[in-house]
């Protein structure tokens, strides 16, 4: 057996006082595929960057040995390192938009990289760029090579990045969360592409991801990381099928599964379909921009939400689900259509007339960083609805805020703390507490868990369920993750291009989808079982061909 393609021994990386990677060792044989899986902060990305010596000159301290394709990354000179980068080992980054220079055409950027490692003419380099773009499935590659990154869709950009990686025929591709920013259907395509390329060229793949499902679909071996250390390594089927370490088990248990029915819900759920709906939208439309640039974000959506029930809304990015959610709580005015709440037509109310109902419709936002004002204490943020309602007794406000914080599982004495002192999941809880402070009848949750790690996701979802049972409020749960939606919803609506393509009881829609788009979506969801994954890959190509 020859020397491994990648050989990492006792790799330790420190950022200032924080140790990101702690004594990591692993190898990767030529042509093999290794998935590095872990939650955020586990050190997986830092390790990947170390393979190409990208920590040089950044202030991070790196010890241990890293050998990639015969180069000792730790001791190599600048020139040697540059010869490694791109030519022998190429990296595919997470965010395809910011990873490309906005000012140059995609073709030129690939050509530039090609010319660094090959003494080719400008023309030849461009030809090579078109060739690899064509290889990664960019239609009309010769023409699209002359486009700038912002003229590409997200999936196309990610393909372009992969093309760049292919340009110099490297022996190793390091892909750092290559699909995280993408919709499921696109994610599936990219994963399929990587799979195919590997099979074709025989290059090694190191895939870094937080999504166990993605790893299951794409690699032979998997390495689970936590707190900078390797927890478990083995063939993918083995690790995912029969985890030996408790952490691995916990991780796997938290992953929502699409094929799992919603657990039976104990307690009173006052979802009486015959009762008058809490909120009813009829033919809601919303347009942005004027004249030639007009875009219809939501195009005639009708739906109802009852007290005590959860309506799930799924869709990919750009499907209009967020716009719809904001209209439901009147953060956005509908362009047309009707919106009835508690028997009143509120769609056309002025801000002033709506004020009495304002606080009864609340929202929990996706980004736990952006949804709390970083310069105000969290207590003040939670107290906002109380003060706005005219409460001025400081003691009563404090008591109520403490009560709410404790209700969502936080320490009630942390009134004076600022958002940055909390983790993402905690901030999401604060957001929920703030929504509850208004004593709402309905809460629209816009991707409330998509920014969270799986273990945290499960906790937040559980909290929402609990509150709903307790308070009998109506929930609208907007998400792109089909598995999550299945877990929480009574009914589900699938959105595409501003319209609802399918709507119904959750088990019906997931069990026997009618609309082709729903089918496509469901097929794109990565499965945890590698064997199953192969079967689904086949289904996908069938669907694509159809």
């Amino acid at each position, binding site marked *: 057996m020859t020397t491994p393609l990648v050989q990492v021994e006792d790799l330790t990386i420190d950022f200032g006082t924080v140790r990101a990677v702690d004594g990591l060792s692993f190898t990767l044989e030529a042509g093999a595929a290794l998935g590095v899986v872990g939650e955020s902060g586990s050190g997986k990305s830092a390790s990947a960057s170390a393979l190409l010596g990208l920590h040089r000159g950044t202030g991070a301290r790196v010890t241990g040995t890293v050998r990639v394709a015969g180069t000792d990354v730790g001791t190599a000179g600048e020139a040697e390192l540059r010869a490694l980068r791109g030519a022998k080992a190429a990296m595919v980054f997470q965010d395809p938009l910011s990873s490309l220079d906005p000012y140059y055409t995609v073709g030129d950027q690939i050509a530039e990289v090609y010319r660094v490692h090959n003494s080719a003419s400008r023309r030849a380099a461009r030809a090579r760029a078109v060739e690899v773009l064509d290889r990664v499935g960019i239609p009309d590659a010769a023409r699209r090579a002359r486009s700038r990154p912002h003229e590409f869709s997200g999936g196309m950009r990610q393909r372009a990045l992969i093309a760049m990686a292919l340009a110099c025929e490297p022996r190793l591709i390091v892909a750092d969360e290559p699909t995280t920013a993408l919709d499921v259907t696109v994610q599936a395509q990219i994963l399929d592409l990587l799979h195919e390329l590997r099979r074709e060229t025989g290059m090694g793949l190191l895939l870094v991801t937080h999504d166990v499902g993605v790893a299951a679909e794409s690699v032979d071996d998997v390495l689970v990381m936590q707190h900078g250390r390797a927890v478990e390594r083995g063939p993918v089927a083995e690790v995912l099928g029969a985890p030996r370490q408790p952490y691995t088990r916990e991780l796997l248990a938290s992953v929502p599964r699409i094929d799992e029915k919603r657990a039976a819900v104990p307690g009173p759920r006052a979802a009486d379909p015959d009762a008058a709906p809490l909120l009813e939208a009829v033919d809601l439309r919303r347009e942005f921009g004027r004249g030639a640039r007009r875009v219809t974000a939501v195009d005639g959506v009708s739906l109802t939400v009852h007290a005590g029930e959860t309506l799930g809304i799924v869709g990919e990015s750009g499907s209009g689900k967020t716009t719809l959610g904001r209209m439901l709580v009147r953060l956005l005015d509908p362009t047309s259509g009707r919106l009835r709440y508690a028997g009143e037509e509120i769609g056309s109310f002025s801000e002033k007339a709506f004020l009495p109902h304002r606080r009864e419709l609340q929202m929990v*936002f996706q980004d736990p960083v*952006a949804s709390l004002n970083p310069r105000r204490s969290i207590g003040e943020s939670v107290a906002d609805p109380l003060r*706005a309602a005219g409460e001025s007794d400081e003691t009563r406000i404090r008591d109520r805020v403490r009560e709410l914080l404790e209700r969502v599982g936080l320490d009630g004495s942390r009134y004076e703390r600022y958002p940055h002192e909390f983790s993402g999941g905690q901030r999401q809880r604060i957001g929920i507490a703030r929504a509850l402070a208004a004593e709402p009848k309905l809460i629209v949750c816009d991707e409330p868990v998509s920014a969270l790690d799986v273990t945290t996701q499960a906790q937040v979802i559980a909290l929402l369920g609990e509150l709903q049972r307790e308070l009998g409020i109506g929930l609208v749960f907007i998400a792109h993750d089909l598995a999550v939606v299945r877990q929480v919803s009574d009914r589900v609506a699938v959105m595409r291009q501003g319209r609802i393509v399918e709507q119904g009881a959750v088990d019906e829609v997931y069990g026997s989808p009618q609309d082709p788009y729903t089918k496509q979506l469901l097929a794109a969801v990565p499965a945890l079982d590698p064997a199953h994954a192969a079967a689904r890959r086949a289904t996908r190509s069938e669907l694509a061909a159809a």
Partner: protein
Amino acid sequence: MSEALLVQEAGAAPVAAPASGARQFWLRLRAQRAAAVAAAVVLLLLLAALAAPLLAALAGQDPDTYHPDLVDSAAGGVPIGSFGGISADHWFGVEPQTGRDLFARVVYGARVSLGVAVAATVLQVAIGLVVGLAAALGNRWIDQVLSRITDINVALPLMVIALALLAIVPPSFPRPVLIALVIGGINWAGTSKIVRAQALALKSLDFVSAARLAGRGRWSIARRELLPSLAAPVITYAALLFPVNITVEAALSFLGVGIKPPTPSWGQMLTEADTWYQSAPTYLLIPAGLLFVTVLSLTVLGEGVRTALDPRAASRLRIGTGREERGERTKERAS
């Protein structure tokens, strides 16, 4: 410096720089040695200006007493003695023609120059904040009208309006106040543009939506949610405006509409000293040097404040307070 640049520079500050308590801000500021020194210098200058009478008394001088015996009348009034008449009594020498003590005039001049610049800057920031916020939060009409007013403000030539206004206002009106009002009242477009742009960006953030859902009104939102986040870009911008305002005051003096004697100001001293460059160089070099030090300190301080307001800077500064910022987004540590 044109306001466009300032817009550009201040605009580069992050929208809603996340998370920074006052203490961390202070830590980050202190961690930058240049900024800390600059802050000390600025503080010293401000103190000197405030304590001008005290300092002058300490030197045993006042800014208004003539010393005809210390200048050579036949030679145009050039100070007698080397280096512009620097002596134990006159630390910075004396002013040509009058023989007034330069040290006293410089410290009193600091009062006027810094005072005018501070007042003008505050005014620019205040007007800019109000107009910018109103434009960002108001409906399309208000935005249109205010944006046009801002355009008019940009197109108004400062010098022309200053000349006209200074002629209109009765001379009994205190000149430094008037100059501060004129500079502040004519040069606010930059601030309002920044504020409008930043407020529009902030407006789309979720925490502003949350405040609306809580039932807050527009102005309450502006005050509680937007203002604190606007502080970073506005402070940064103000630090850049300040030195510009000092030189504008000097330029007004050059055109003959600046601070009036006997009140000293650096700008006025510079203008007067201009022609004395060869025969009494210290007369020019002292105010010019001080102006330079002030502008330098303020600019460095401005950069420092901007860096300190950006929590991402913490890791660069290696004080370890902001490191978790990035990971924080997606991380939950056993809650």
